[in-house]
């Protein structure tokens, strides 16, 4: 075997290029709504003990509508981008509307092609590629599990 390293890696598999695309990396490196709320109506934390990914979610409501949302956390590009995009998708929505988006998102992660095309998911559709990588589903869903808990805590 030659001791010298090749100049670069080979082209990545297509499903990976589809997953690690610009928009995901952008949310990973410049997360939106990152931070905490001084007076959240609900605060929840979720951790994936297997890999250490972590999401803290703060929500403030106006009646039934989400007024403000912030998150902090750490982890892989998928978990953090998913959280960042989720917070953008929540603003101004009612709990019922959020539930519908969350359901659609889980369907997309589970591999439903119609969900992956659904305009209601907006930018979140960039995460459709994760469907093909079952071991990473928990990463994509972590923030959404935190959200489900937040909504159920609020009742």
């Amino acid at each position, binding site marked *: *075997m030659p*001791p010298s*390293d*090749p100049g*670069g*890696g*080979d*082209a*990545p*598999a297509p*499903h*990976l*290029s589809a997953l*690690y695309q610009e928009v995901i*990396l952008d949310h990973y*490196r410049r997360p939106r709504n990152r931070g905490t709320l001084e007076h959240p109506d609900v605060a929840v934390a979720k951790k994936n003990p*297997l*890999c*250490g*990914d972590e999401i803290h979610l703060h929500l403030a409501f106006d009646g039934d509508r989400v007024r403000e949302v912030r998150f902090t956390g*750490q*982890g*892989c*590009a*998928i978990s953090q981008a998913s959280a960042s995009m989720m917070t953008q998708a929540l603003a101004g929505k009612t709990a019922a509307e959020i539930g519908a988006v969350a359901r659609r998102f889980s369907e997309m992660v589970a591999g439903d092609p119609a969900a992956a095309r659904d305009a209601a998911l907006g930018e979140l559709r960039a995460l459709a590629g994760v469907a093909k*990588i079952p*071991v*990473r589903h928990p*990463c994509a869903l972590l923030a959404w599990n935190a959200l489900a808990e937040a909504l159920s805590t609020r009742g």
Partner: protein
Amino acid sequence: MSALIDRDEFPLLARAPELVYLDSAATTQKPRAVLDALRAYYEHDNANPHRGAYALSARATERYRAARERIARFFGLADADCAIFTRGTTEALNLVAASWGRANVGAGDEIVVSGAEHHANFVPWQQLALERGARFRICELAPDGRIDLDQLRAMLGPRTKVVAFHHVSNVLGTINPVREIAELAHGVGALAVCDGAQGAPHLPVAFDQLGVDFYALSGHKMLGPMGIGVLLGRREVLERMPPYMMGGDMIEFVHDDRSTWNVLPHKLEAGTPNVGDAVGLAAAAELLDAIGMDRVRAHEQALVRTAYERLSAIEGVHVYGPAPDARSGVVSFTVGDVHPHDLATILDARQVCIRAGHHCAQPLMRRLGVAATARASFYVYNDESDIDALVAGVRTAKELFGHATV
């Protein structure tokens, strides 16, 4: 360097020629010799040992005894009955903490571990200390990643009951001076317990010369089957330990109001033993002895040196732990801001298997100041082409994440 044992000897690797298996610190692949030994035991000699009054049961008993003897010899333990079979390192360490610990550690006593222990050699002691009102103390690491012996020396005192430490770190690959640490522990009358999960598969181990009271290991990390491990111990200490679990095989007489215990090793092996896997592990020991642990060590060093140099040469890659010559066959690293889990996914798409995460060593990760690392680990079936695949995969990951990694 080519493989020390050909991939063809490992049915899983032979079946998947493209697979690049770099997670042997988690568990190794199994050679045909071990799989054959398992099958032969079940096809020819299987019965419940110690119990049946018939020739087949006697044969199973003999196979079990011979496996223990073979494994004890492999680890340089003359008194084979002081090799206690367990499910693995975790059970072996829990056995010591539960049996010896409960009998000997009281309020105000001290238990010392290092900051780089696997959870299996950290949590049982932490919990024992909490239960007993003992003080749980953590010795930090020196800059070279080994246990800081000066700090350890200063920490030990008349209240120290146990010093529990790892032979080889599963994250950094650092090799600790076992004999020196055992001497320090014994100097204050404390028990020396060594987690050998990453030592036993990779370094020659001569238990009777190591000086420790206990050495715990897992068969599945050294070519053996899952579900079998060993606690190597000193008779003097084992004899004074109360049983860990109660049931069949471990008793001598059961009266209505009390019981007496069987002799070693049976006192500490309650229930029907795992004969099949013990036989499998003995076959693994046979194979490793035939190659020679010195050669296993040299092979891994050559691989680890190459991997270390080639990974370090990539911009943005940070390798944790000591220089290659001072480590075992483990390389933990990070690649810019590519999270280790993303890296593992990208490598997995190229059939390169690495570990990513905290490696069951959260206290150490805190000390390193990282949440997760990627880890490649090597064994007898790896060769330089595996490192080529690893390095190429890391470069692909860097490109995928763009060069502006911050």
